[in-house]
């Protein structure tokens, strides 16, 4: 019966098509042929979705909200975990490590042909207890093998906020040695950035941390400084409050945040490392959420930094979130894109807008909180120590509630493309 039905429908469609063709004028046929030709010339999609059934990557960063722990009680709940891609066994294939905020981290070994194997248990890298955030793969101990550094946040217990350093044993297993390396940072960490700050051919690290008191996130706190001048208040103790800079001193890291001049009490969400002033020393741009201004930590050599944000930028994003640095205009100088919460539809924008007024703005400007506007900022590097915001000229100023950005030449045409994640 089904067979008959199939036959019938086939027949019917053939008949229909036949009829249609007959009715078409020559003009219509030309148009159809033209469209078909265009479609033939069109490039296929740049990316292909690979199903978990094929890749064996089934990791999912599931978050279960409760009465006491949800987006209302903790605003950074959905900031996400992290992913690091790198070749952990030097077989020429990139492996993938995911952090799960409340679920187990996962390490997937690349077996070629986009097929992966979950070796989390045997590699001993599940991240343990606590709320895991960002992850970085880097050869921390200079032995030619990629190690894994996992950040932690949220928990009220210091012990559960200790960041982890998984040292690669070279046999697809890892040993957690953060404490031994001096990198068991107990701050509320977001992400770690490994880079050679002092040019001594080992990796130093900048760890992005933030305070926990979200109630004061948008407060302009000013007070008399030692000279009796009113200026932004400086916390008396930066423990579990500040970003940290650790200097690599052969198999052990030394917290030289204070000497480096990077102590802060801002809600940092991302950073980019790059040479902002063409002096061949890596500088750090830190995106700070809420009212605290972003920082441009210019590398002065010898692991010393100086915040020069006001000198290089006329203004910054307000609630800066993601950031990336790349040469947009191919002039040899890296350009900077920072993201904010700026929907392009007027109604949405008004609904998202933080309360701002003339007097608060003036107060921020007067007391070194910087000139901040709620929009993405695409800063073109003028190559002379100054940057120019061209975001409104290029349709990238308002991209909804935007989290992270990647600048990369996706279609290989020689120009950097922009990928923005929203949520």
């Amino acid at each position, binding site marked *: 019966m089904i067979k008959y039905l199939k036959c019938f429908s086939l027949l019917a469609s053939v008949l229909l098509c036949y009829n249609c063709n007959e009715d078409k004028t020559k003009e219509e046929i030309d148009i159809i042929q033209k469209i078909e030709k265009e479609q033939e010339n069109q490039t296929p999609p740049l990316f292909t979705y690979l199903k978990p059934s094929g890749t064996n990557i089934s990791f999912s960063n599931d978050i279960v909200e409760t009465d006491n722990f949800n987006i209302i009680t903790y*605003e950074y709940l959905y900031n996400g975990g992290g992913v690091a891609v790198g070749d952990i066994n030097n077989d020429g294939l990139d492996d993938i490590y995911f952090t799960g905020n409340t679920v187990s981290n996962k390490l997937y070994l690349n077996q070629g042909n986009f097929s992966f194997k979950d070796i989390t248990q045997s590699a001993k890298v599940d991240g343990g207890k606590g709320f895991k955030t960002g992850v970085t793969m880097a050869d921390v101990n200079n032995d030619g093998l990629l190690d894994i550094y996992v950040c932690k946040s949220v928990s009220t217990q210091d012990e559960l906020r200790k960041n982890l350093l998984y040292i690669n044993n070279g046999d697809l297993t890892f040993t957690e040695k953060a404490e031994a390396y001096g990198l068991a940072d107990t701050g509320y960490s977001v992400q770690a950035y490994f880079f050679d700050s002092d040019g001594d051919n080992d990796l130093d690290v900048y760890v992005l941390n933030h305070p926990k008191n979200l109630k004061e996130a948008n407060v302009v706190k000013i*007070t008399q400084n030692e000279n009796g001048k009113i200026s932004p208040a400086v916390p008396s103790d930066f423990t579990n409050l500040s970003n940290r800079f650790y200097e690599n001193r052969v198999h052990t890291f030394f917290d030289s945040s204070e000497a480096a001049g990077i102590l802060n009490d801002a809600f940092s969400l991302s950073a980019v490392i790059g040479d902002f002033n063409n002096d061949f020393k890596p500088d750090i741009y830190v995106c700070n959420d809420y009212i605290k201004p972003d920082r441009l930590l210019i590398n002065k050599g010898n692991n010393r930094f100086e915040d020069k944000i006001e000198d290089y930028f006329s203004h910054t994003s307000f609630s800066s979130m993601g950031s990336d640095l790349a040469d947009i205009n191919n002039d040899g100088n890296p350009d900077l894109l920072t993201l904010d919460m700026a929907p392009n539809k007027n109604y949405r924008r008004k609904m998202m807008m933080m309360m701002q007024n*003339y*007097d608060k703005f003036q*107060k921020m400007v007067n007391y070194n909180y910087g000139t901040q506007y709620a929009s993405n900022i695409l800063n073109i590097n003028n190559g002379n120590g100054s940057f120019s915001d061209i975001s409104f000229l290029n349709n990238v100023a308002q991209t909804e509630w935007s989290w992270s950005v990647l600048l990369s030449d996706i279609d290989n045409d020689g120009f950097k493309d922009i990928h923005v994640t929203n949520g």
Partner: protein
Amino acid sequence: MKLKVLILFITVLLCSCKEVTKHNTQVFQTSDLNHANTVLLEAVMEDAFTPPVASRMYAYAHLAHYSTLQSLRQDSLAEITTKINGLEDFKVSRQNEVNPELASLFAFSNVGKKLIYSEHFFDVLIDSLKTRAELLGLSEATIKNSENYALEISEQMSNWIDKDMYSETRTYPRFTSTKKPENWRETPPDYANGLEPYWDKIRPMVIDSANVFDYKSLPEYSTDRDSDFYKMVYQVYEAVNNKTEDTEKTAWFWDCNPIMTVHKGHMVTTIHKFTPPGHWLNIVHQVASKEKSDYFTTANAYTLTSMAMFDAIIAAWHVKYKTDLVRPVTFIQENIDSEWTPVLQTPPFPEYTSGHSATSASAAEILSHIFGDNYTFTDNTQLRFGLEERKFNSFREAANQVNLSRFYGGIHYMQGVEEGARQGRNIANLILKKLQ
């Protein structure tokens, strides 16, 4: 069976010869007036009007009620309407078959509806008044006449209200702080603009002008630890640092912030409560219920209290923007301790004199005058907001506690609350004198 028929017959008979209540019988009770007052307080809270704006709504609605009632029951209430600034020519036409209380409650509702955003509160009130009037046996004609009479008075009141400079002041420039250390500056967490900087341009109801009170001058601004100014601020700093459960509870009991904002990261939630004058009108409600006060005493208490608070706020606001004094939080964070925060949220206007103290003292004077100097009462206004009820031995004791609460709360200096209270008392007594 026979019995049933008989009962039916009697019932029909009773219904058919049901007597219509005489038009001027007092069928509406104190509880009805209390209910109307509650509707007003709830509507104001829903719309989160600021204390000055709220005081205007309370006072005008209650005055409309009083004037209507007095015009119909001249023996029961003193004539005050023509003693109100701008209402010297207030006139009413003779009306037949009007129920005085119903007409008064209609007038109350009309004026309330005119001033509020959430008009449905009063639409519901008007409907319920009509239904209740029918149930109480008032004839359709009486209800209609009462409505018309109320409308006539409401229109007259409305014209008078429109000339109080409220609309004009809405168009005045926004207030920008001078940014000088001694002056008021926008305070965390909202950094909101100065609230109602031109409120002293609003026509007072009874006092001659906003300037009637001679306030004590302030110590000269100084950051020198030995200066009087520094000491005045330091007292607040210490009061908050040495806070106890008791002082904190006192602060929150009289917080009366119509719109408190709670900031957490990007999220801002707001909590609405009765305003300071709203809190006091709720005290009137409780006292009138407890005392089983007659309708006229209650109307008198509501009207005089709300008018005194309205004038007291105008006078306090006059001093506020004239002296333009820095709030404790600003001075303390800048000069003493950057980590210090007050117990209560600092309201967005200059410190001197305390509006809540002036409001409370004026209300306490009026209520003492009506219910007695040593009147013991319990205030349960804050139960619904999760706080305790409080017992007071007199209205003035409650008002004095308000002074302390603003000081404990870290939002006022001692001089600010003391002078605010003196100002409130002073104005209430001026009003009592003039209206007698």
